[in-house]
């Protein structure tokens, strides 16, 4: 019989379903019979989900402006020799 601690150690594998069928079934049996592990499993899954849906704010305009300035400088350096007519 699986203990709660053993279940917890396998929680990620259980959530990601990266176990073989027998191991998965054993964990599933535990989670169905243990209300605490059911809640921990459910709230851990929700935790991961809420981070995956996390909003990503745009880069502030001033920071983006400096980034693009630095990039343009680098791009000019890289492309520079091609622009003027080649000199022997």
């Amino acid at each position, binding site marked *: 019989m699986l203990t709660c601690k053993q279940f*917890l150690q396998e929680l990620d594998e259980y959530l990601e379903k990266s176990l073989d069928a027998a191991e998965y079934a054993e964990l599933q049996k535990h989670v169905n019979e243990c209300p605490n592990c059911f809640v921990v499993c459910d709230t851990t899954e929700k*935790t991961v989900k*809420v981070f*995956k849906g*996390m*909003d*990503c704010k*745009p880069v502030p305009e001033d920071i983006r402006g400096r980034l*693009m300035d630095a*990039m343009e400088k680098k791009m000019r350096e890289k492309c520079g020799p091609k622009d003027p007519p080649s000199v022997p």
Partner: protein
Amino acid sequence: MSTFAAPTAFDETALVAAAKAGDSGAFSELIRHYDRRVFRMAKQITQNDDDAEDVLQETFLKAYTHLEDFQGNSKFYTWVVRIAVNEALMKLRKRRSDRTVPLDDPIDTGEDEVVREIAVWDQNPEDTYSREELGTILDEAVQSLKPAYRTVFILRDIEELSIEETAETLNLSISAVKSRLLRARLQLREKLTRLFKNKGDDAFAYL
């Protein structure tokens, strides 16, 4: 001025190919598409706006300089994330070089997997909080993690690298990534449950 990439026009493979062929506009388009994610990750790791800006610039300058080294074995963004996370960790090491505890070597106190908050969430956080409020809550939760756990969580669960890619990026074993990820998730679950729990559902004892 709007800086959003056109939602239907983004074709990473084509833009990378064009950038490799010398189209700097294509590379700028890649930057516009990914800069916010790189900046967010840099801030989450360094916890400092100035360092995050440096990381943002260094990442795209290096990516541009070494674009020919990108072989297409992973997604372009995964390759960029690897550059960014290394830049961010370098910043962090530099800033904390006087500390005696290495950043990537968590001390195992045996208490990281303790579960105290056993309660269902009585709400869908996306419905209860504005996107801004929820973003602040999640940012603060991630920032409260130890750096070694935080970095693994960011790469795996926010940037959605695979376990293998996360291990390779951080030069860790697969088992170390799995162990740190579990601890990070449980610690975050603990923090979020304190905020989102059904207040009447707090009676279980556990472990």
